[in-house]
C-alpha cells in the first residue's frame, strides 16, 4: 500500500535528519558542572553558571538506588540509575535561581542552580 511506503520514506528521512544534526551539534561550548548525590543530598547543594551559555551537569549518583533528577524551571527530567553517572544538558538560561530535586525524594533532596 502506498501509504505505508510514504510513511516509511518519511521515517527514513527523519532518521537521516537526526543523523546529520547529531554530527553538527556537539561543537557548542558549554559550562560543565560536577554534581554528586549521596544519602539523598546534592553536593554541592548550590551550583552556579554564567547566563546565556548552555550548561552541562555531570551528575554522579553515589547512592545504590535510582534517582530522578528533575527541575521544573529548567525543564529537565532524567532518571539516574543507582551508583552511576549521568550527563544532563541544560539550555542557556537567563540570570535567576533554578531549583532542582530528586523526584523520588522531593522534600529532602533539593538543590539549586544559580545563573549570574
Amino acid at each position, binding site marked *: 500500500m502506498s*501509504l505505508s511506503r*510514504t*510513511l516509511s520514506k*518519511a*521515517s527514513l528521512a*527523519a532518521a537521516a535528519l*537526526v543523523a546529520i*544534526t*547529531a554530527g*553538527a*551539534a*556537539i561543537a*557548542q561550548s558549554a559550562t560543565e558542572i560536577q554534581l554528586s548525590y549521596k544519602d539523598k543530598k546534592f553536593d554541592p547543594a548550590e551550583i552556579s553558571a554564567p547566563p546565556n551559555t*548552555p550548561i552541562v551537569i555531570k551528575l554522579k549518583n553515589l547512592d*545504590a*538506588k*535510582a*534517582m*530522578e533528577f528533575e527541575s*521544573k*524551571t529548567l*525543564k*529537565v527530567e*532524567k*532518571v*539516574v*540509575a*543507582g551508583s*552511576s*553517572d*549521568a*550527563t544532563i*544538558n541544560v*539550555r542557556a538560561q537567563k540570570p535567576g535561581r533554578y531549583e532542582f530535586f530528586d*523526584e*523520588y525524594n*522531593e*522534600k529532602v533532596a533539593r538543590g539549586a542552580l544559580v545563573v549570574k
Partner: protein
Amino acid sequence: MLAALIIVFREIFEAGLIVGIVLAVTRTVPHRNAWIGGGVVAGVLAACLVAVFAGALSNLFAGMGQELFNALILAIAVVMLTWHNVWMARHGSELAGELRAAGQAVVEGSKSLLALAVVVGVAVLREGSEVVLFLYGVLAGSDDSGLSVALGGFAGLLLGALVCVLTYAGLVRIPTRKLFAVTTVLIALLAAGMAAQAAAFLEKADVLTAMNNVVWDSAWLLSDSSLPGKALHTLIGYTDQPTAMQLVVYLAILAVTFVLMRLYGAPAKTVRPAPAE
C-alpha cells in the same frame, strides 16, 4: 505513603488519559479490549525491562540514551496515531455505528487496533519505567516501610485508572457520529504534542540545535507541571516554554495529518460508494 501515591499518580496520569482516549476512539471496533489490554500489558513488561536496564540505556550515545530512546518511542507513537487518523478517514464510515460487523472492516479494523495498541504500550512504557524504578528503590531500601509505600503506589495506580475511566466516560457521551470528528481532532493534537515532546528530547540530547530559542514563557499563566497544565500537555502538547523547533514540528504534524487524510481518505468514498451513508 502519600508521597508514593503522588509520585505514582503523577506518572500514570498521562498514560491514563491516553488509554481513555484510545478506548473511546475504538468504541465501535470489535475485539478492541484484547488489543488495548495487550498494549497495556506489553507496556508494563517493557517498562520493567527499561527499568532494569536504565543504567545501560543512559550510557548509550554519550549519556544521551534516555533522551534518544524517549524521542524514538514518541516518534513511533506519532506515526501510529497519524496512521490511525488517515486509516479512519478512509474506513471510518464503515465502522462508525451501524455497520460495525462488516467482515472487511473487522479485518481492517485490527490493523488500526494494532497501531493504537502500540500507542497505549508506548504511553504505559514511558511513565511506567519511572514508577518501577521508584517502587523498586523503595522496596530495596530499608529506611522506608515497604508496605505503606506499596499501598500508596497502589492507590496512585487506582487514581490513574480513574482518570482513564473518567476520560472514557466523558468522551463516550458524545454521539457516535460526532465522536469520530472529535476523536480525529483529539488524536491529531495528541500526535502533534507527542512530536513536539520528541523534539524537546532531541534538543536535550543536543541532537537538535536549530531553532532552539524559547518563543514564549507562559509559566506565569499556566505551568506545565501543574495538574491542569499536565493534562493539557498530554492532550494538546501544551508547554509553557516552547522552542521555535517544537512549534514548527507541532504545526508540521498537524499539516501532514491533514494532507494525508485528504489524500488517502477521499478515494475510498469515490471509488466505491461508502456503504454506511
